[in-house]
């Protein structure tokens, strides 16, 4: 690490205050849409579409109940005949003259997102690590051209090849399958993953592996014991980028999945309630959808902070 030419002193209290105010202001601006979504999740359907918008309202879990259930409208007499509600969510639904008829498909779609998102992230990072190591350490014929080719797969928006991929997937029977979506997202993420990770491997001096090999380890053992631990930060940063892409991907998910393998993004915006979109349920779904990425990022944030500088400040 090079030493900065200026001295980095403690900021004065006034500077700290100013910096704090700026950070808080920026955070507020960027977080307003997020907060609005989280709040909407706790509104009742009428409150969610009332005009002017309500900032203060009576919170309810109706959105979450609607998100996870299917319901049908019944006459008050029929509901009366059912006897007292057994659970709090039955009671909540009956207030609107409805009864729960079953589970919604949200949980399944959410699981699809988890399987496809984490599966493709794992694959992209796993393959990316091996490829990056090979590109960094071995004599690969046409190395530079191959690296450029890998990068070039990202030079157009992936959706540009949506139609060929759609046709190909239909032929191969990969449409609407977990495997198909995992492969697709892996393919898209792999170029980012190889490029990022190669940078991290390049940063690790070969002497480390050579020392291990002289000490009696095989090349593969040296890779596992010496290179991988030092790539932790890079792998974490890369995994987060890959996960965020795969998790949020909308266009291909909409095009290629409809049932078994449909992920949450195309599903959430079309949660229909009575008389149109069920906004509180949509907002509740969106809120829940945010959780894994946030948790994943927070868990890896220490690695991420080191990794995101892309090796600039390693030691």
């Amino acid at each position, binding site marked *: 690490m090079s030493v900065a030419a200026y001295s980095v002193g403690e900021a004065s209290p006034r500077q700290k205050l100013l910096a704090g105010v700026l950070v808080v202001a920026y955070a507020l601006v960027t977080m307003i849409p997020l907060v609005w979504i989280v709040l909407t999740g706790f509104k009742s359907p009428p409150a969610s579409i009332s005009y002017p918008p309500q900032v203060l309202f009576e919170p309810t879990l109706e959105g979450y109940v609607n998100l996870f259930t299917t319901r049908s409208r019944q006459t008050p007499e029929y509901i009366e005949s059912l006897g007292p509600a057994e659970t709090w969510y039955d009671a909540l639904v009956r207030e609107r003259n409805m009864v729960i008829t079953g589970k919604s498909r949200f949980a399944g779609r959410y699981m699809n997102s988890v399987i496809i998102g984490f599966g493709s992230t794992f694959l992209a990072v796993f393959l990316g690590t091996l490829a990056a190591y090979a590109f960094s350490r071995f004599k690969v014929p046409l190395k530079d051209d191959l690296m450029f080719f890998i990068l070039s797969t990202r030079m157009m928006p992936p959706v540009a090849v949506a139609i060929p991929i759609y046709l190909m997937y239909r032929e191969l029977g990969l449409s609407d399958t977990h495997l198909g979506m995992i492969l697709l997202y892996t393919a898209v993420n792999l170029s980012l993953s190889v490029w990022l990770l190669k940078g991290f491997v390049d940063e690790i*001096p070969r*002497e*480390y592996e*050579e*020392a*291990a*090999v*002289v*000490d*009696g*380890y*095989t090349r593969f*053992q040296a890779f596992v014991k*010496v290179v991988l*631990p*030092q790539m*932790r930060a890079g792998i974490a940063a890369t995994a987060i980028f890959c996960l965020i892409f795969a998790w949020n991907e909308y266009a291909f998910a909409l095009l290629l999945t409809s049932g078994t393998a449909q992920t949450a993004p195309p599903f959430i915006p079309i949660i229909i309630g009575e008389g149109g979109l069920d906004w509180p349920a949509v907002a509740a779904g969106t809120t829940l959808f945010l959780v894994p990425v946030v948790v994943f990022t927070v868990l890896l944030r220490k690695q991420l902070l080191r990794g995101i500088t892309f090796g600039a400040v390693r*030691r």
Partner: protein
Amino acid sequence: MIKASLTSATKRFGETVAVDGVSLEVEDGEFVVLLGPTGAGKTTTLRLFAGLETPDKGRVTIAGSDVTRLGPAERDVAFVFQQYSLYPHLTVFENLAFPLKAPGRRVSAAQIRKRVEEIAELLRIAPKLKNRVTALSGGEMQRVSIGRALVREPNLFLMDEPLSSLDAKLREDLRLELKRIQRDLGATIVYVTHDQLEAMTLADRIGVLAEGRLVQIDTPRVVYERPANIYAAQRLGSPQINLVAPTALAVGEVPGGAAQVGVRPEDVVVAPREGTNGVANAPPKGVPGEILTVEHFGVETIALIDIGGRQVHALLGPRTTLTQGMPVAASVRPGAALYFDATGARL
């Protein structure tokens, strides 16, 4: 007994010939220092011994067997790298234990602990065993690097400028320790440096490398007193040997074919041309010159003398009365001059 050898080993990297037909035999328990400037092929020579490079031509033997085609793991050598030999994700203890934990070595955990503690004691890093290596000072890191090599008892130790990143004082301390440890263990070491002081003090034999070729290999004393050529003569001695035309200094009988004469600063005899206190001395022998600068280093004094437009270093006693600007007469201690032919080889 010969512990390790290179036989006409050559290694090319594209157009560069990093090691050019080097033959070198290292005796059991010997401390061989390879001396040469950056790019001379020192590191590549060590890597050939270690199996990190395979020679394009020639053979490598270790402990009596031909290992030319064997991988590093099968050679049982230890390598101390110039830098980056410690794993930043491990503690000092784990770094020292790493070579012992190699698969196939089968050392029990108790033995590993015992051995690591012994080495830590020997190198005076015992209190730091639990630290991360990133929290160590430069000198401590270098001790751990050397310790990593010492935990095993390999056939051959290879050390690539292990002290070059340290400051002068630490370097001296570690140098002395290294020599002591080598003697105690009877270790066979090939050590690489560009520092002549390290070479002179550590080596049983010094190998002088120039552009991939081994110019001379002999005891420090022989390399200093009877260098094979100008290049070797210039590698040892500070200030460097004076090189002058055969006639520039009065050196007596010059053998035929001599193109240059080398005189070490300590062999230049300097006397004032004018007597002190106005009293004329007997006219001093030697060629006339004038003192340009005088540098006092305590135990010695070094003067730079202008002789007919050529600058010559001379070593003076600590209590010399010569000062800048003085006219002097310079001569050469009889028999001390070295003669080199037009190709630079010593006659």
